[in-house]
């Protein structure tokens, strides 16, 4: 059954153990750091960094806050990337992971354009590059294990399990502690729902989440156009043949009249 992950932002302490675990499990090389005024490191998600904790400082209701937000592929229920891919190199597994098969990929990067979270990253340095992104540890999950990040999380900020249980947990937490959490499970409705869910004490727009996303799954927007193709083809075939016949006939009639 489909898995889910709950990220409780009130519990994350910014240790970044998840980043290290992810690099270890996926055997990704370390990256040279650069100082950008925060404790964040490495600078951004890219071809060899599938997850990264963002550090956000700000004010909410006059109170100072410092929060740590793990970012990675959200594993949408109806992924825009998978619907965009012309060769089916990206697909949704029954376990809920959005998986990339590099042997099919042609490198058009429409998935990167389509992703509302700007997650798929590219090997820009390679002559024949592939897409890189979080795999939801599909290999570990298939073997009955937790994802590497949630396995390593020491503060129980990451909770991995069956999607339905995870969603229920998120909602229960909010109901039980309305003072601790704002009443919003990020990822429950956004772009039709994502396998990764976030709960927080600070409004999501103050934490750099994209809160203007539609609740309609993005593939539905393109399907509205694609689903009309049969009618366009049929209609045009009939109309064009009709016009051709009428115009030809008119010409013939004119010629006979002239005679």
């Amino acid at each position, binding site marked *: 059954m489909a898995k889910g992950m709950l990220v409780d932002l009130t519990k994350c302490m910014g240790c970044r153990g998840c980043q290290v675990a992810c690099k270890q499990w996926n055997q990704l090389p370390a990256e040279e750091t650069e100082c950008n005024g925060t404790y964040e490191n490495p600078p*951004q*998600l*890219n071809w060899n960094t599938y997850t990264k904790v963002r550090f956000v400082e700000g004010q909410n209701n006059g109170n100072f806050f410092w929060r740590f937000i793990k970012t990675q592929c959200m594993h949408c229920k109806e992924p*825009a990337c998978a*619907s*965009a*891919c*012309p*060769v*089916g*190199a990206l697909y949704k597994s029954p376990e809920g992971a959005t998986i990339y098969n590099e042997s*099919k*990929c*042609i*490198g*058009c*990067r*429409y998935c*990167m*354009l*389509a992703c*509302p979270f*700007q997650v798929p*990253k*590219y*090997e*820009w*340095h*390679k*002559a*024949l*590059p*592939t897409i890189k992104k979080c795999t939801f540890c599909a290999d570990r999950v298939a073997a009955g294990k937790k994802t590497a990040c949630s396995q390593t999380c020491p503060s129980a900020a990451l909770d991995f399990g069956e999607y339905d249980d995870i969603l229920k947990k998120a909602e229960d937490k909010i109901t039980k502690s309305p003072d601790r959490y704002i009443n919003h499970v990020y990822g429950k409705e956004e772009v039709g729902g994502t396998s990764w869910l976030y709960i927080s004490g600070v409004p999501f727009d103050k934490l750099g989440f*994209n809160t*203007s*996303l*539609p609740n309609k799954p*993005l*593939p539905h*927007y*393109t*399907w*509205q*156009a*694609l689903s009309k*193709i049969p009618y*366009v*083809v049929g209609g*045009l*075939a009939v109309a*064009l*043949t009709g*016009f*051709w016949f009428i*115009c*030809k006939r*008119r*010409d013939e009639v004119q010629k006979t009249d002239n005679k």
Partner: protein
Amino acid sequence: MQNNEKAIRLVTPGTIVLWLLILLGAVVALYRFTQGLGASTNLNDKFPWGMWIGIDVLSGVALAGGGFTIAAAVYIFNLKKYHAILRPAILTAFLGYVMVIVALMFDLGKPHNIWHQIIMWQHHSVMFEVGWCVMLYSTVLALEFSPAVLEKFKMGGGLLKIIKAFTIPLVIAGIILSTLHQSSLGSLFLIVPDKLHAIWYTPLLPVMFFVSAVMVGLAMVTFEAFISSKTFNRTLELDILSGLAKAQIVVLLIYSALKLGDMSVRGSLASAFQGTLEGNMFLLEMGLGVILPLILLVLPNVRASRGGLFISSLLVVGGLVLNRTNVSVIGMLEGSNASYFPSWMEFAVTAAVIAGGLLAFRIAVKYFNVFPSHEKPAQHNRPNPVKNTVPVLVP
């Protein structure tokens, strides 16, 4: 006429520039295929599509729109006077598609996998539709131009007869495929409602792309007639050109009404006048590429003058390129939270692809019978009586 075209030289001061551009493009290509897209372009993880998609592919396909438009006029609506410009229009469309495919080879990360489109179907992808339309319509265009090649190599027999017999089905297939392809390039951006600026994002994007492709197709045919007349010493058929101009007025009107109507219904009209980069680029695109040529073409004096027709068609072509660049690059910057300006190597490849197209057209005119030889010079400002055309084969 025939002799005139045989005398076309492939090495002249002008074409040497084209050859040099192609050489530069080839060197950059070598660099791109050894060092990667990161070293050769300014594309990045936040901005995966740039100039090669915006200009070479999106604009390139639209500029090839003259092919199906003129084929429809001649074969479906039986407007015989346009027969004279059919072959050059088909040739331009075919070369345009070849240029798009070449440019795509630079842009794709794994161009050697392009054939995957044939066997790995994913019909929920707009890119799947785009890929199939390119494959099928290029084939149709090749078949539509093939009589010129078959004539040349004296293979006029059975093969030519077969192709001739299938003229109408081929033309109808070409129009359907073009309609799908032009509109699907707009549909590509339907999946980014949160990224594409509200000035351009609308569920009607496919319709906008289709109508503007017809609009620019007509302008391109006009533009090309002028270039050919200068380059190949051909007479201009003013009658044909002012007919095209009248058709352009209609399509420009339809496009303006659609675009401005849609914007006012969606409430994005105001954002065009706020002095933002997006707003100004839109005003430029709409003002110079649609409204100004519309005003010019409505004036009978302009329609009757060669210079006026040339300028207005040039404006429409420029406006279209601006529109496609706006949708795929300018309109996507803010929503992607990205910055992007093409590298010199991206410019070099685009220039090389265009240079290649121009040279290929020249070569085709030299060796094949692209311009029908029965035309007569146009009398000044007087409509030509339509000659009873010898049925020059599909196009």
